[in-house]
């Protein structure tokens, strides 16, 4: 497995295969301008990747583009992007530079990842989403096996939850000398506290209170077909790199006890399981013979029915389904309109009245049949 890590002046290069350079000019989490990285860029022999992962409206794109066109791009072995505009730009203007695409946000199906693989001849790597379970990743990797693209997953690091270009903290806090504000946040919704929130020149970012940790699953990750793993936590990266190389449980234990962590959705993703509870089942039941909706129910007097589809007829059997799902079956004996005129039938679009039916309330649905 190849180990990928972010550059910092204190980085130990031993065992690292790929170094991500995150200049403030193009990287959402960059803390160092490109100019300060030049000595390292000229001396480091490992693979060097320029991180250009900000999302950009046209004005920001123009600024980033001017930066890319100004620097010596040959200092880098590849460029990592998230904005599809950056991918397209590199394809058009730097067609020979290898590109890596950050697909951590979205791209949860094989078809979208395959489309990315086919989007650019020089796409060398895709960084996969942390929302994909190992089972899904395994299925997807089998489909994508035919492409020569590599895949990377973050095995330890902060979990980004929210990214906006707006400056949300500066109304309350002062920037430090480097132009950053870092605070912790506690939501009104318990027990959610300890969110790390950062504002910098590219916007505001909120992270999960716990780090994402998949170091327990390195063998499974490799078996799935993901060959590149990223250590994204600068303060823990050395322990993590040591563990990846030695697999000494003591190193892993040190990491686990130093910071709270989660494994996220790696084992299973059931984040759509609650959806059926969000839906009002009452609305799932419109079927053949639908007549309309009870607008009003006046005890011992009438049901007012807004006829939305099929009409009503004297003598016809109808079925009424209440909002709670209870069913009432009656035959229409009397039918009248708003003026009180007796009717033989009612038509779509009209307001019709029938005798009150006990247990039927407003918003019940009326059907022109006795089934099911």
């Amino acid at each position: 497995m190849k180990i990928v890590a972010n550059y910092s002046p204190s980085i130990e290069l031993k065992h690292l295969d790929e170094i991500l350079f995150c200049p403030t000019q193009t990287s959402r989490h960059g803390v160092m301008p490109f100019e300060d990285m030049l000595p390292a860029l000229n001396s480091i022999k490992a693979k060097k990747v320029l991180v250009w992962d900000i999302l950009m409206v046209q004005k920001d794109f123009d600024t980033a583009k001017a930066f890319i066109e100004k620097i010596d791009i040959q200092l880098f072995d590849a460029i990592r992007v998230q904005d599809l505009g950056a991918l397209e730009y590199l394809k058009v203007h730097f067609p020979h530079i290898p590109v890596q695409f950050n697909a951590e946000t979205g791209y949860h199906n094989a078809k979208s990842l395959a489309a990315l693989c086919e989007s650019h001849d020089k796409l060398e790597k895709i960084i996969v989403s942390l929302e994909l379970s190992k089972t899904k990743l395994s299925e997807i990797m089998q489909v994508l096996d035919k492409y020569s693209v590599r895949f990377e997953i973050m095995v330890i690091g902060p979990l980004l939850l929210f990214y906006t270009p707006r400056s949300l903290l500066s109304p309350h806090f002062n920037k430090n000398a480097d132009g950053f504000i870092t605070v912790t946040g506690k939501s009104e919704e318990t027990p959610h506290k300890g969110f790390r929130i950062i504002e910098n020149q590219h916007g505001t970012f909120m992270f999960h209170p716990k780090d994402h940790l998949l170091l327990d699953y390195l063998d499974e990750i490799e078996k799935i077909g993901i060959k590149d793993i990223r250590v994204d936590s600068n303060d823990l990266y050395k322990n993590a790199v040591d563990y990846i190389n030695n697999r000494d449980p003591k190193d892993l234990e040190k990491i686990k006890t130093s910071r709270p962590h989660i494994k996220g959705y790696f084992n299973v993703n059931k984040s759509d399981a609650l959806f059926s509870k969000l839906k009002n089942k009452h609305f799932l039941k419109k079927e053949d013979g639908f007549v309309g909706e009870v607008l009003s129910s006046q005890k011992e007097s009438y049901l007012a029915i807004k006829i939305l589809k099929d009409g009503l007829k004297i003598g016809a059997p109808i079925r009424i389904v209440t909002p709670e799902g209870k069913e009432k079956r009656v035959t229409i004996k009397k039918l009248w309109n708003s003026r009180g005129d007796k009717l033989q039938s009612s038509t779509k679009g009209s307001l019709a009245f029938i005798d009150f039916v006990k247990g039927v309330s407003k918003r019940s649905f009326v059907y022109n049949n006795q089934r099911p």
Partner: protein
Amino acid sequence: MTPELLAPAGNLEKLKVVVSYGANAVYLGGKNQFGLRAASENFTEEELLEAVHICHQKNVKVYVVLNSFFHDKEIQKLPLYLDFLSSIEVDAVIVSDLGVVELIRSYCSIPIHLSTQSSCLNLYSAQFWKSRGVERIVLGREVSLDEAKRIREATNLELEMFVHGSMCMAYSGNCVISNYTSGRDSNRGGCAHSCRFEYELEDNGKKVTDTFMSSKDLFGLRLLKDYQKAGISSLKIEGRMKGPLYAGTITKVYAEALKILDQGKELTQDLINQWEDELKKVSHRDYTEASLLNKASEESIYHQREESSREFDVVGLVADVVEDEFLVIEVRKKFNKGDRIEFLPFRGPHQETIIPNMYLMDDTEVDFTNPGGLVKIPYIPNIGINNIVRKRA
């Protein structure tokens, strides 16, 4: 060219309301997990058929949202649904997932609109999507009108932009707070609106409590001419989860304004003031022009937990009209004999009346109404079925 007005339709009732109040197109979701509003009522296939029928009779277009980030199990279900959408002749589908775009393009000929969920922000990104067969792009809410104009000129793509309503604070598609705090995938319809919550922020002992991630509502009314100059094809009103009063009022205001632009006339300050008065009558957060002119500033943050109180409540909908005799009102909120109420006709200014007397359906005279009931009030010309009835809160 005057942009089309695209209104939200959370269900069939709301669809009829916005079509009646002047929408040129509606967007809606089916009862599945392909959209981003799992909690909305949405449309059964039968209702979708009905919706297309109603809309096409009035030359109104129907766009169906398929804009969640699909997992493979949903991709597998999609072709059958596309067959259905093709058969009922919807006018376009709104998509955010690259895999879904590829599937639709190879499977059927329904036009594809790229959802704002894809955060398409610049012209190279637009070119990427154009090369994938997308016909229209709903630009990210961060894009300014000047930038949109550049994208339009460079790509000649149809562009759609939001003009009014609630806004995500995050780049759309780049927020997963709900996924990790509520176990609900925000990019598959489960957003818990965590950005509207209050947070206690702390730095070196300084504590601040604020809804710091909450955005004010977008308000593009004063910039309609700029949208037009930028070559924007469609103006979108947010709000599939909102009620009929909201959807109807906003649609009516923007439809009237666009009609004036279409006639080549100016939107005078008097007219804008009148429309702003109307817009204040529905529940909303403070308004902002967000990034339409310049990057959204501190001013665009909404520092309150709840929406601002509305000036008016919906007290009912007109359920029946018996010409020259009476109106039947389906009562949603209590009102009394002698109250001043307003009717919002589909065209033209609202009509005010003081209720002289009210009757139940059996002609018993009453002094007040009960929600859920029907009352008859004396006939008022030019009021139609489904007109909104409101009263100052």
